[in-house]
């Protein structure tokens, strides 16, 4: 007969591992691993491959923070979270940060006590319809059946949109993107609505992508970004400036290929400050001086990460659009490294 070994091991390992009250950075360093909450699977943003290695746009943010704090892009534990479990996982300290297509909203920032450290993808909720439906605007969708993913802000936006335009619809709530895709393709719903990036990614994997169109209306603002808990600003700073470092690197032309060389010193003082050959920015964060150089050499700058995971040369094929650098007419903009 088995004895209650479990409480034994619990007592030995589990409870002893408690006491998360110290700074998150110290915890992460003591653990030697970063716990990063990602989605359970979203094409291009986070998905495990056959060997269990996670890959994707959000995953790159996790890995960048792991490089900045621990110097190792593989020192990350990816914790798959659903729309339902993500906030509790972060609030309870199960994960150190969340990089999971999470929309920055007032109530999440203020009421749920989280801190959004920035935006890594500017998104908006769109609609996808089969071309042969002959619909050219979301306002023509009166009486349509709409597939939505539950547990997100999409269902609230959708209700508001149809209500304010005074047209009716039939919602079909669905748990996962894969499920929604199946229903949409089979014609169980006329329209699929989620973030435009998700729609594009989903459409790219269809047998005949050309048979489906994205409607012009974007009915919401969905700034997606990594977030951390309230109350540990030092840790928030690290995640924020890791993201900013990748953005700034793209703006300044620092790439994974030339970062090592540029770290030797350049004529541009901002590049020097970023890569640690001038000033003490890394030290201020409690990291090594070359933290940003390591991040960029390991993961690349923002543009490289974008192109590698969701850019136009990948099957997902997203254009930069709003997510171009501010210098190219986009919204991606990092405060200066000074």
């Amino acid at each position, binding site marked *: 007969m088995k004895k209650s070994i479990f409480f034994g091991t619990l007592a030995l390992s589990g409870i002893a591992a408690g006491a998360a009250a110290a700074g998150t950075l110290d915890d992460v360093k003591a653990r030697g691993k970063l716990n990063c909450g990602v989605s359970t699977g979203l094409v291009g943003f986070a998905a495990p491959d056959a060997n269990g290695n996670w890959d994707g746009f959000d995953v790159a943010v996790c890995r960048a923070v792991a490089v900045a704090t621990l110097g190792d892009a593989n020192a990350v534990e990816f914790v798959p979270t659903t*729309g339902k479990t993500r906030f509790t996982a972060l609030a309870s300290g199960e994960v150190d940060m969340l990089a999971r297509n999470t929309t920055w909203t007032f109530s999440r920032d203020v009421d749920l006590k989280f801190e959004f450290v920035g935006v890594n993808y500017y998104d908006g909720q769109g609609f996808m319809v089969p071309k042969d439906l002959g619909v050219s605007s979301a306002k023509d969708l009166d*009486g349509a059946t709409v597939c939505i993913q539950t547990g997100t802000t999409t269902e*609230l936006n959708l209700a508001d949109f149809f209500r304010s335009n005074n047209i009716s619809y039939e*919602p*079909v*709530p669905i748990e996962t993107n894969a499920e929604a895709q*199946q229903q949409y393709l089979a*014609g169980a719903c006329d329209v699929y609505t989620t973030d435009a990036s998700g729609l594009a990614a989903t459409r790219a994997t269809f047998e005949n992508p050309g048979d489906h169109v994205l409607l012009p209306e974007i009915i919401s603002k969905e700034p997606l970004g990594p977030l951390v808990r309230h109350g540990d600003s030092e840790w928030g700073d690290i995640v924020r400036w890791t993201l900013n470092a990748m953005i700034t690197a793209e703006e300044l032309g620092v790439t994974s290929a030339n970062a090592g060389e540029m770290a030797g010193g350049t004529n541009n003082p901002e590049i020097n400050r970023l890569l640690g050959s001038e000033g003490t920015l890394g030290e201020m964060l409690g990291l090594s001086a070359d933290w940003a150089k390591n991040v960029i050499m390991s993961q690349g700058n923002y543009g490289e990460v974008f192109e590698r995971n969701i850019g136009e040369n990948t099957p997902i094929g997203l254009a930069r659009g709003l997510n171009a650098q501010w210098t190219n007419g986009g919204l991606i903009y990092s405060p200066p490294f000074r």
Partner: protein
Amino acid sequence: MTTLTDPPKESFRLSMLIYDTRYRSMTIQVVAMFGFMLLAAWLINNTITNLNALGKPVEFGFLGEPASYDINQRLLDYTSRDTHLRASLLGLLNTLVVAALGCITATILGVLIGVLRLSNNWIVARIMTVYIEMFRNVPVLLWIVLVMAFLIEGLPAPREFRGDDATASMILNETVAITNRGVYVPEFLFSRPLGDISLLGTSSLRFDVSLELIVLVLVFAAGLYVSGRIGRYADRTQEQTGERPVVWYWRLAVVVIPFAIVSWMLGLHLGYPALKGFNFQGGTHLRNSLIALWLALSLYTAAFIAEIVRAGILAISKGQTEAAGALGLRPNRIMSLVVLPQALRVIIPPLISNYLNLTKNSSLAIAVGYMDITGTLGGITMNQTGRELESILLLMAVYLTISLSISVVMNWYNNKVKLVER
């Protein structure tokens, strides 16, 4: 003067709490009680500390705020401006609907399959065995997902009904449309309605009762009552005279005729679904999610009920069947008059627990997007408001109430049909 045989007058010593069986049980109980309260206090204290640290004190005010999301399958009127409380109420009703439907079909299917498994037709008995093993040994969640996938992939989309070269058509004389968005069946409409009564005003628990429905139910009940009186009159006549007057057409007439007249006066007619715009309009729409959940739960539970029925039938000694056969009853009469009534006593207790399981399994509705109480209160509401503790406590309380109610009703019924043992 005292005698030596007198037992010494014992004074109470502290050690007697442990060694004396008279006090020991008391000691254990007090210790257990104390331990239990200590544990509860510890948990509550932790919870309060943690919640204060998170800045989320326990309060149920969020239930009064607008829910902001829509629910497709609903029994009462609801818009996205209604409160979370009303959304939860609709979810609760959806849970009850699918549980009730599931219990009924699972019982019918289960009895049928259980009896067929004992059939002397070899191939039928084998098919039923395969069915039972297949459904019992694969998780119900997987069945729900599979049935949903089957409905979505296997049935035609509404657009296939459209145009001259339609590949699908409505069945039953163009009255029922089976699509992969659900089944559209005709609905009852009244062309001369009496209106509704709104109960509970505009609160979250408000509901409308249609007057014509009340009238019809009353007329029907009155018809049944009169019919019963006629039946008793026939019984009395039979007892007194030995001859039973032929009254069955009277009994039928008093139920049907008034009902038909009142229905006609109210203008009862059927509203048929028709393809309009994106979807079928009109009629009653049973969503795919409801059908998938209902079907999967029924098929899954039916496999268990079939085994219970089979065990119940096998528990009846063969002598009963043989004696009934000796009396000249045909096999189906033996089954319905002799075996099943006796088997019922063995069947009912495990049947109750299967009903309970079905009700609890209906919480997996979330996998197919059916908005039951787990999907509303335990799903979107919890997710949007961030009130995990309150939502889950309420959710558990609701399920506990449902479970206990089913147990109470079923145990009462069980006691009623139980064999009175000598």
